[in-house]
């Protein structure tokens, strides 16, 4: 037994069992599923950012060759299909609830962003559907668009929703500003910063797509689409189209080609496709292209922040003031308005002891695609602000930024933040020391001199960060031994890059002492997922799903002891379980032998149900005490070409405390991926809408800057694991850390490089053009001074 737990147990660098299949093209993605007699669907999307719908003339399209049906929002309303959105229980300080938008899958009154779907065409072939879609007459009375959060907040700006003329869905505050003002009045120094967190688009490799298959005999619908979990979409489609009967709807994501948060949402497109399939009683397939995916997938980030830290004379923080305008887009989606409050709000002050907080968050509606969860979901934004502020404060105090951080790190745990979150453990200084050592910070001056000799500007930058992870408070796992001794784990957490098949197998192999190879993960299907099982988001699968596996295994061990006792003719109380063996004084039996006996009624003790098949429903109280707090310190070293503004990333050192490391190979991969996405946001990515017309200007890979291999460097990832006290595995989550650490570390490094030129402020993305302008504005100011 020991042989394989040593090799495949928790903490071992086990290679992903998923990869062989995926690397040889064996993955099955949504477009790989095709059905006899399937029809094809195309969306007509609004080319206008804002306008009142006068008429949608579908007659010519309906008469076009091959067309089976053309549907608009009016058709869906006639059939009683209701609102797509879920409601959010957030209120303003005075109790005013958040504004509820009334989104239908296809709008009937107005179009609110360029690319909003307004009609669907279903035809025998994909080309016929597209051709017919061009024949739809969309008559829109155009209105001026509002594009940015600040534009939307301007007096007299056009109203995205007539019922909410000020465009503010929710002005949330944690408190009145009084307490902050009081400490600010006696502060030795107040350091302020204005920051824009650039809008980005999550780019899963698999574009947005969906096939709604209809069983001709039963009318049951199976939705094939890339999701991070199936229950919620199953529930939404059942509620909107099948009178709440969940048995009528099944959802399958055999493989999901990237999630990043954007694949955890219920899109209006999905509802419209399912509606058309049900209405026509035909299997309907839709494959969005890249531009259609970019114009309709929920975007990420997009905040404007005005922040201040008040310090005493020793550089100790007295209070933090943050005013944020979030661009939540045209519709109040499930998490859009929560990101900056429930997401980033969890860890607003980063790793620092903040005694007093004033936080004002205005969620502004605009004529753009809604923003929602994107890897990190509010925590990268929050960490970015405070890390930029600490760096600026250190300069204003004239002390080393590492020292200023040390003076303010939270050191007494558990620590309750001003937002009421209980941070259970961490050692922020230890992570920083580890990163400083890996980055060889002490010898930076020599490397800088070397760059200078080559006419380049070298910079080094650091960011400490903390995030709150854990997601929703329940997950359900089923562990089932088969008669042949193999074990199946049934789950609702969908793996889309996290390596669940590997990590869950490690956890189970370690716990039950069964061979790693004998464990299978059954996932990606609401028919096999345990009832109520949720999904994969917010760095939760290992800490929720993993713990549920442990606890289901405990039930199996207890039942196994009874069977083993019967087999060994011992008392159940005398049987112990260790390293895969049930032991009594008289002898021992293996887990597999017990599993086989469990299916043989002749070998079972009286009164015991056959089989070894247990499901555990793991719940946390869902309050503020049961999150985990992954944290770390990331250090970036860059070289800037002062002539062109081009930045080269030279070195990256990450020291992460993601709690217990279940599989270092996989966690390294998660750190690398997160850092790449963080560098992407900081260096190249920027989703831009034209402020005059509301048109999306970066709707293809020609215009939207995805990071490439040349933008990255070798990434050192080290771990300082301090097990979470909130779950028995001790895991904290690792998927989102890179996105939190990379942007501030990178920007701080570039600011450090440009310091000799007098550049004091930068906003992401740090494209060569933006850097060149920052350099030259400073030079011209310097020349006139």
């Amino acid at each position, binding site marked *: 037994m020991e042989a394989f737990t040593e090799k495949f147990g928790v903490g071992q660098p086990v290679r992903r069992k998923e990869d062989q299949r995926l690397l040889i093209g064996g993955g099955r993605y949504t477009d790989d599923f095709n059905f006899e007699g399937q029809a094809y669907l195309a969306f007509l999307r609004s*080319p206008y950012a804002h306008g009142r719908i006068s008429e949608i003339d579908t007659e010519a399209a309906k008469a076009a060759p091959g067309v089976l049906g053309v549907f608009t929002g009016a058709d869906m309303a006639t059939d009683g299909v209701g609102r797509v959105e879920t409601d959010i229980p957030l209120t303003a300080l005075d109790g005013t609830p958040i504004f509820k938008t009334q989104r239908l899958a296809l709008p009937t009154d107005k179009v609110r962003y360029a690319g909003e779907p307004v009609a669907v065409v279903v035809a025998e072939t994909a080309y016929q559907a*597209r051709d017919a*879609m*061009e024949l739809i007459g969309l008559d829109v009375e155009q209105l001026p668009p509002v594009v940015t959060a600040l534009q939307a907040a301007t007096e007299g700006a056009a109203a995205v929703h007539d019922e909410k003329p000020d465009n503010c869905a929710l002005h949330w505050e944690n408190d009145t500003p009084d307490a902050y003002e009081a400490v600010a009045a006696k502060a030795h120094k107040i350091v302020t910063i204005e920051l824009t967190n650039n809008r980005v688009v999550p780019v899963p490799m698999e574009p947005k797509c969906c096939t709604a298959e209809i069983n001709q005999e039963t009318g049951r619908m199976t939705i094939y689409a890339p999701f991070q979990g199936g229950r919620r979409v199953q529930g939404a489609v059942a509620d909107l189209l099948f009178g709440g009967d969940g048995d009528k709807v099944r959802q399958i994501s055999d493989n999901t080609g990237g999630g990043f948060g954007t694949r955890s949402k219920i899109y209006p497109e999905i509802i419209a496709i399912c509606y058309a399939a049900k209405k026509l009683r035909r299997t309907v397939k839709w494959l969005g292209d890249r*531009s259609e995916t970019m114009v309709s997938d929920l975007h990420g980030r997009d905040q404007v922040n005005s922040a201040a830290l008040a310090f005493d004379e020793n550089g100790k923080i007295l209070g933090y003031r943050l005013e944020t305008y979030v661009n939540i887009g045209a519709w109040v989606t499930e998490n859009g308005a929560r990101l900056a409050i429930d997401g980033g709000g969890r860890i607003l002050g980063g790793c620092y002891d903040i005694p007093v907080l004033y936080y004002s968050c205005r969620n502004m509606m605009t004529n753009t695609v809604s923003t929602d969860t994107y890897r990190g979901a509010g925590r990268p934004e929050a960490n970015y602000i405070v890390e930029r502020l600490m760096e600026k404060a250190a300069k204003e105090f004239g002390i080393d930024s590492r020292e200023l951080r040390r003076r303010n790190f939270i050191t007494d745990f558990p620590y309750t933040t001003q937002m009421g979150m209980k941070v259970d453990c961490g050692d922020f200084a230890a992570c920083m020391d580890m990163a400083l050592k890996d980055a060889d910070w002490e010898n930076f001056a020599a490397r800088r001199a070397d760059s200078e000799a080559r006419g380049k500007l070298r910079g080094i930058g650091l960011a400490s960060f903390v995030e709150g992870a854990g997601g929703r408070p329940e997950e359900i796992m089923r562990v089932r031994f088969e008669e042949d001794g193999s074990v199946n784990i049934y789950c609702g957490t969908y793996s889309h890059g996290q390596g669940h098949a590997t990590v869950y197998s490690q956890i189970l192999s370690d716990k039950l002492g069964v061979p790693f190879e004998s464990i299978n993960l059954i996932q990606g299907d609401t028919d096999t997922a345990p009832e109520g099982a949720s999904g994969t988001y917010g760095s939760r699968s290992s800490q929720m799903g993993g713990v549920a596996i442990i606890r289901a295994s405990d039930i199996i061990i207890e039942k196994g002891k009874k069977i083993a006792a019967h087999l060994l003719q011992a008392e159940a109380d005398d049987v112990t379980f260790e390293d895969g063996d049930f032991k009594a004084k008289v002898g021992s039996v293996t887990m597999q032998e017990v599993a086989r006996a469990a299916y043989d009624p002749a070998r079972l003790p009286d009164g015991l149900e056959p089989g070894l098949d247990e499901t555990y429903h793991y719940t946390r109280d869902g309050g503020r005490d049961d999150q985990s707090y992954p944290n770390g310190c990331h250090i970036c070293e860059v070289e800037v070409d002062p002539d062109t503004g081009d930045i080269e990333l030279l070195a990256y050192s990450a020291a992460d405390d993601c709690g217990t490391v279940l599989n270092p190979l996989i966690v390294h991969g998660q750190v690398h991926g997160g850092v790449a996405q963080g560098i992407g946001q900081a260096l190249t990515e920027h989703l831009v809408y034209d402020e005059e017309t509301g048109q*999306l*200007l970066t*709707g293809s890979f*020609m215009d939207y800057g995805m990071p490439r291999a040349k933008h990255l460097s070798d990434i050192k990832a080290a771990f300082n694991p301090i097990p979470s006290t909130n779950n028995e595995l001790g895991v904290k989550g690792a998927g989102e850390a890179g996105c939190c650490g990379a942007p501030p570390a990178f920007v701080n490094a570039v600011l450090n490089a440009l310091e000799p030129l007098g550049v004091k402020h930068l906003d992401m993305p740090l494209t060569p053009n933006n850097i060149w302008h920052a350099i030259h504005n400073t030079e011209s100011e310097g020349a006139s001074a």
Partner: protein
Amino acid sequence: MDMTGEQRIAAPKQVVWEALNDVEALKASIPGCEEVEKKSDTEFSAKVRLAIGPVKARFTGEVTLSDIDAPNGYTLSGQGVGGVAGFGKGEAKVTLAEDGEETVISYTAHATVGGKLAQIGQRLIDSTAKKLAGQFFSNFSDYLDERGASGKSGA
């Protein structure tokens, strides 16, 4: 998108002005033009096939003339829809000035595009617009030449 330009045409101002208001001359000159219809003295409709970068589409549009100051200039405003490609709309102020036997056409245009055109073609619009303007005037000169309208041999 904003564009300004100047084009010298080897024909008298009155001839140029008339051609700028003539359906046949416009049809021959507008690149990709399939149809022009004069609905009134100030209203035209047209069908034009265009390619902007990877986006190819047939645009159906209406053009209205205003601030007419014959034969010195006018303002054109119009919009066209190109199905899935999106839409474009814009305005151009056109003035004609005599220079001996020749005419100098000056124009200032402001246009916006929407839909797929904006999403994919935006970076290419300025260069495409310049190219289309160049083609228009080249075709326009050729048209006048063929008709013998240019220079001294006019009717």
